[in-house]
């Protein structure tokens, strides 16, 4: 859950990721030597979890691109972030310092 006490994390900069056309996104997880596949909505959120975008900006980014309502987009964001946390694919914003480029 994203809250003031538990702010939005950012993607782990050690994990390479790439969107493929409109099909989704591949994320390489070196620590597990595996590749995770995200669907287009997940890929959009993951790309925006860069420590620069706020929760509202991500929600509106999803609403604009995928034509879902705000309530649904926010709920999806929270559920998705929980999944990413469980898989160790994000770090808390304060722990992430290394700059990275958008892909």
């Amino acid at each position: 859950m994203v809250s003031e006490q538990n702010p939005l994390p950012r993607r782990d900069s050690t994990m390479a990721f790439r969107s493929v056309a409109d099909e989704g996104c591949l994320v390489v997880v070196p620590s597990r030597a595996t590749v995770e596949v995200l669907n287009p909505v997940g890929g959009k959120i993951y790309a925006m979890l860069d420590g620069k975008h706020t929760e509202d900006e991500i929600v509106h980014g999803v609403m604009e691109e995928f034509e879902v309502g705000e309530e649904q987009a926010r709920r999806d964001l929270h559920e998705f972030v929980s999944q990413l946390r469980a898989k160790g694919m994000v770090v808390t914003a304060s722990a992430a310092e290394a700059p990275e480029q958008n892909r």
Partner: protein
Amino acid sequence: MSEGAESRVHETPYSRLMNRAFADAVPLTCQIEITYRCNHLCTFCYNSPSGEREMTTEQIFDVLRKVAEFGVLYVTLTGGEALCHKHFFKIAAEVRRLGMALRIYSNGYLMADKKVVRRIKELTPVEVEISLHGATAETHEGLTKIKGSFAKTVKAIENLNEAGIKVNLKCPITRLNQHELFEIKALANRLGRYIIFDAVITPKDDGDLDPLSLRAGDDFLEKYWGEWYAELHDGQSPPRGNHCESDGSANCGTGRSGFTIDPYGNLLPCVAFRRKIANVLEIDDIEHVWRHSPVANEVRALSVEAKRRIDALGEESYLTGFCLGVAETQTGDPLAFYPQVKVNARAVRRSYELLQIRGGSANDRKSA
């Protein structure tokens, strides 16, 4: 949860994405030969240094930046022996800093030193691929020509295991190690790692056919593809097509799923098909060249044509590992079915015929 969110984190759509990338010629991998220097003297090596000046480290950084801007996901550092580059660790760190996943191809010699492996661990590579040429020092070193290299390579694998780094092993099959493939497999098992045997020895990149003299004999290859393949590959059947074939529209991924950059900065369609597309140091944008280069477009078209010709063979279409690069180097025609691939095709076909008679697949055979 909305339909969109339901399947965001899962694994099954992987092949769909890969097929789409293949169809659109979106390269996800880049193999960079950062130097031709090597601490081994393998007689079957395909490298052909031209004597030109290799890229400086700064130039390699420039190349990496352009590769990252192109959107590549995986960078493989290779050589020669990649670790022989004096700035290997700086280069590898730059790959990671740019947000790309790192693979390392190596002979393992320098990784017998635990300090080296600790530094590799810090780079969080996805995997390290090590070449193992024999089950004994005599055989391994008969090919590498470096005394003590067998013990160091085995030690390297143990060190990488201990550090928790994924290791893949590969073994090019030659006349000098064909007699002990099962012992090599047993050694790999003891080391807890899967080993890929490669029955294709290629000419040197400059067309020198000398390495072919080390090629395993035809009688051996028939047994390898037929009786022994499944046992050596954990029950897998021999492949009927090229190992990097993806969506079935082309023979392989040359000029499509990845590309290679040589130590001089030349952009090539793949490691085996070495037609120069451009020099990365002389261009600003790889993507534009990749999309519009007549060389790249011709290579992609040739791979589609090769697939069409192989499919047209019908019952004879068991051309395992047909490689346009080998065909061009060896015969001058990238679409010619060169002798080794015909031998392999006959053997693989016979293997499948035997399996049909037995009423199962190689995988069934193993589980039974």
